[in-house]
């Protein structure tokens, strides 16, 4: 099976990040990868449902949209390139069934059954919040209050980052106001240096500032993403919010990858081991920067 969500990685490659081990959203895999949930049945109907009743290890009828669609035709394979991204090995295609606008011209609102039996139309109900949703309020990543307490001079800072140009200028300057953490002279990286826990990573002051600022940016994007996620749970057909989600996630993936390469681990699956086991040797976030 092949995968087609490589556009994320194409972008990463454009920026010279390559593929991150912890962020590998590549869907390339062998059939064997799903041996554990192989029910030995290939009787998939036209809608991607599995007609086989004996699926012990894998609930193949657990289909978010399918259960509501009442068998409506869902021929989404209109350009053929989205089907393989999300096959979970059980014959279901989560993209087909559950994703809303995936950029292939599909729209869950059109595909799913809309009448709830009470005379209301789910499509109308769930798509009516354009203009009032979170995505309009948080479109500007820099407006997060968490970044408003800082008086950093970004134009000046940009000079220091001029040789860190492997993420785009827009993102370098995007976090216009950062937190005290990012502005503090004793940021977490300095703390790490002071306690001699930095092992092999020796950074210039510019690099330290870069890392503090990058973390601030990641916090902002991560929060924006969470806000979109929670909004989407109750507005799953809001295509504007879906676009916003994808846009933020792409940025966040890139910057988290960059952070773990250059600064330190964000998760225990993102440790660059050439610097030792930094998961255990770096300061923890609740320690603050004072």
């Amino acid at each position, binding site marked *: 099976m092949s995968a087609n969500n490589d556009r994320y990685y194409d972008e990463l490659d454009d920026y010279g990040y390559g593929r991150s081990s912890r962020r590998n959203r590549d869907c390339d895999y062998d059939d064997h990868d799903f041996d554990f949930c192989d029910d030995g049945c290939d009787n998939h109907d036209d809608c991607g449902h599995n007609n086989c009743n004996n699926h012990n290890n894998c609930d193949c009828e657990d289909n978010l949209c399918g259960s509501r669609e009442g068998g409506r035709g869902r021929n989404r394979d209109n350009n053929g390139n989205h089907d393989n991204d999300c096959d979970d090995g059980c014959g279901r295609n989560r993209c087909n069934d559950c994703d809303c606008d995936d950029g292939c011209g599909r729209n869950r609102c059109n595909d799913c059954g809309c009448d709830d039996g009470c005379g209301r139309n789910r499509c109308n109900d769930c798509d009516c919040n354009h203009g009032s949703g979170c995505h309009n309020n948080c479109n500007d990543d820099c407006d997060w209050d968490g970044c408003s307490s800082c008086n950093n001079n970004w134009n000046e800072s940009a000079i220091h980052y001029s040789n860190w140009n492997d993420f785009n200028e827009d993102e370098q300057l995007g976090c216009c106001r950062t937190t005290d953490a990012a502005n503090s002279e004793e940021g977490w990286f300095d703390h790490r240096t002071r306690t001699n826990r930095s092992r092999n990573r020796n950074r210039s002051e510019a690099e330290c500032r870069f890392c503090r600022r990058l973390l601030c940016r990641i916090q902002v994007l991560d929060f924006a993403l*969470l806000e979109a996620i929670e909004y989407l749970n*109750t507005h799953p057909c809001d295509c504007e919010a879906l676009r916003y989600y994808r846009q933020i996630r792409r940025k966040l993936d890139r910057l988290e990858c960059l952070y773990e390469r250059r600064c330190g681990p964000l*998760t225990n699956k993102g440790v660059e081991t050439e610097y030792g086991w930094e998961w255990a040797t770096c300061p923890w976030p609740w320690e603050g920067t004072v």
Partner: protein
Amino acid sequence: MWRYERKLQYPVNIKKPNAELAKLILTALGGPDGEMAASNRYLHQRYTMPYPEVIALLTDIGSEELNHMEIVAAIIRQLTRDLTPQQILDSGFNAFYADHTVGLYPGSSSTPFTAHYFQSKGDPITDLSENMAAEQKARTMYENLIRMTTDQDVIQPLEFLRQREIVHYQRFGEALEVVRRNLDCGNYYAFNPSFDARSTVKTK
């Protein structure tokens, strides 16, 4: 399954210890309207919730409350760091200190955390109504704490947490609408969709 991310959802950098304030803020961690109760409430309600959008919301908000637990714990930790025994004796934090030193222990200043602080009732309307009330109670608690605080380093994360209560209230209100859409619109209470088989219950 969860994975820890090595960053706070909102930064906490407190310059000045304040044991008196720490004692008050303890309730936001393990008190009746604290983050520990919130997280447990939503994460435990998920399993009987019949609607996938609402399960998603309970999962995501329940997980966000874990972030908030960490933020509150960071506030308390930084407020109680580098205190002298005399400062503790003078502060009203002394009783807590006697039992826990400056260890983080969830509860309000007088009562340990208890599961009595939240409900999981196995009925979607009941559970979501509880959640909406809980978010409002937590908002009130944060407003009370903010009123008693002058340190901007503490007020800022508290204001962030207060804002999140309001957003979550909004989302749970929408989730309640999702539930109602799936019920008998002539009688929302005709059956409990978490328990009764729809086909066996006469509606209308």
